[in-house]
């Protein structure tokens, strides 16, 4: 996924090879991760797509099925991965992820501890930010979940920047070997306050902790716990509102007061008339917010080690 080996970064000259991970794009809300394998096919409602047809094509190409249906083949990014990964748990989405990476001041070379690993949605973005010289140590309580995450990082090519451990961080804390080495710690745990003392031990001076919790009671308790060792304690909520764009036609009727006219035909967009009064263009591209949205994901509490 990352262009660590610069021969593998996307370019006009790089084409899809056998073994590549591609994101098959049907629609913005329908994508799928596929590892290209010479003899395989992809079957969906548009028909059968032969992988062998894909090899040698550029990323970003439109490819066709036996029935003439088509999909696009995209190069994987952490953002696309978040949309296609298997949900083993509730995952973090782009708004929270972006904010966490920025607010934890994560850059190349950082060492970051994370728990739980969950579905690895955040981990993938953390790895992008610390590569090629930093490392993410991520821990999950569930052996199986940790294993699946490890497989995913192998598949996305991130395994050299991410180590997945099986550990009950709430119960045992982070391993002592990381004491004082972490630039940042991220917690997504049901009872984060249990892990905060250990997180404090792991952090470098001025290092930053972030805890993600869906409920305000968790936040209240975490904020109480961080008081003792941390400063700069701030809690945020981040959301994204999306817009839909349409070409709209408006009825721009005129009433002349003669009691008999109905709607006049729509006027075309007019330039300013007298006195600078603008006539509203009757056919134009307009955007409005989508009606339904994710109303809440969780609260993000940040604190800086004193």
């Amino acid at each position, binding site marked *: 996924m990352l262009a660590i080996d610069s021969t593998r970064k996307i370019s006009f000259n790089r084409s899809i090879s056998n073994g590549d991970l591609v994101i098959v794009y049907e629609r913005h809300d329908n994508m799928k991760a596929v590892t290209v394998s010479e003899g395989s096919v992809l079957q969906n409602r548009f028909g059968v797509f032969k992988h062998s047809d894909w090899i040698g094509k550029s990323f970003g190409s439109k490819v066709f099925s036996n029935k003439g249906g088509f999909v696009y083949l995209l190069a994987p990014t952490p953002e696309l991965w978040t949309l296609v990964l298997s949900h083993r748990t509730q995952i973090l989405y782009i708004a929270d992820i972006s904010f966490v990476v920025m607010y934890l001041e994560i850059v190349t070379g950082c060492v970051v501890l994370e728990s739980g690993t969950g579905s690895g949605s955040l981990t993938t973005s953390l790895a992008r930010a610390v590569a090629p010289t930093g490392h993410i140590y991520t821990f999950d309580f569930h052996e199986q979940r940790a294993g699946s995450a490890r497989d995913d990082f192998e598949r996305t090519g991130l395994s050299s920047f991410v180590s997945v451990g099986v550990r009950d961080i709430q119960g045992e804390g982070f391993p002592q070997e990381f004491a004082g080495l972490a630039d940042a710690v991220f917690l997504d745990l049901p009872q984060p306050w249990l892990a905060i003392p250990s997180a404090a031990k792991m952090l470098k001076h001025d290092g930053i902790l972030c805890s993600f919790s869906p409920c305000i009671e968790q936040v209240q308790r975490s904020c109480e716990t961080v008081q003792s060792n941390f400063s700069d304690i701030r809690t945020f909520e981040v959301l994204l509102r999306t817009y839909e764009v349409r070409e709209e036609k*408006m009825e721009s*009727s005129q009433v*002349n007061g*003669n*009691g008999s006219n109905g709607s006049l035909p729509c006027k075309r967009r007019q330039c300013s008339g007298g006195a600078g009064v603008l006539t509203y263009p009757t056919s134009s591209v307009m955007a409005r917010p989508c009606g339904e949205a994710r109303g809440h994901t969780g609260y993000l509490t940040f604190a800086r080690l004193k």
Partner: protein
Amino acid sequence: MCSENKEASSRITWEGCSVLLDINDGDRLVFARLSPAAKLKIGNKNCSLKPLIGCPFGTVFQLDSSSDGPFLSPLQPKGNVNNTEEIKDGQLNGEVRDNRSLIDNNTAQSLTGEDIEDMRRQGAKGDEIIEALIANSATFEKKTSFSQEKYRLKKQKKYAPKVLMRRPVARSICEAYFKKYPLKIGFLRVDTLSLLLSMANVSSNSDILVVDMVGGLVTGAVAERLGGTGYVCNTYLGQAPYSMDIVRIFNLSDEICKRILRCSMSDLLSQKESQQQNLLNDESQSNDQMNVLGGIEEISHSSENAISDLGAENTTLPALRACKAAKAGEKASPEVVDSWKENGFSSLIIAAPDVDTWTLVKDLLPLLSNSAPFAIYHQYLQPLATCMHNLQLGKMAIGLQISEPWLREYQVLPSRTHPCMQMSAFGGYILSGTKICSS
């Protein structure tokens, strides 16, 4: 649409009364007019609405069976009716048992559909059936308590459906349409509607001019506030008035219905002397008259884009006929129109998603008294921005503001408090201001 001597504020239903039936915590929402013969189909059962007559609004009914068939009987209140929220969020409760090993297919249940029908025929209550289902479930005990609650709720909805009878007022009508059929009301959210009424200073003895292309919701809400004083003038472009269906859902008294009048924009804009002639205009195009039969309207998940009549029309007709005399939305008499022209309207509300705002405002604003406030709803920002700019340039109004209401609901539960995970991200935009004297 209107009731003879009943008050809109009556808290007990009567024959001919309009009600909002909330089935299984909002899964289905049905507007109905009560009569001894009216029937409502729940699942595959047809129940008479007769038991609902004379009951207080807010009563919860449960579907029970007797040898005479299914019937609705009032539930004694015991604990919170809305227990769905509690369940929605159960996984946060610290409990992390894994359900994946459970295969929840029909083999886990030893009671058959026939067994259940037998129980019903023997007069078993819904709750008893649910207990029997649980007792005969091979997997129930192994479920997490969250899943157990979910199972119980699912069975309750199927075998002991609950019907909450709500008062059809601006709030409940707006919320029901917004949830089930928002297109009909132009996606007008309840907080946005409430702002329109405030910003247009809707108060007794006022004459409010409205352009209502949202099915009559604004007209009904304004009339409800006026309470039989002043007038709502529902105006329209061209010759065919806009639909006012939704007004009939409110329990408006005759007194209030009489205060809802219609007048075409051209009549409002013409000189007084031309008034007489317009009286002769054909009114047959009224959309409203075509829909007079719809006695029960349903807004449900299953028919998301259509209001379906549930086949009880004839039973509700007598009630409608009884108040025909005071039908809401009569054409305004020349005298009333002249008085509006002479005094000016007290305020203006526009909810016309498909008409260019400035075109309407340019013509309608001069009909307002000086110092009259106005409030214009739109789903797009641009028409309001252009209108606001032109009003500023024309020095026609002051206090101009475009605002966007923002509404967020919360789940408040012990240790599980947070904003609801789904929200309506958009309630439209409002342009508000006050007309000033032309200089």
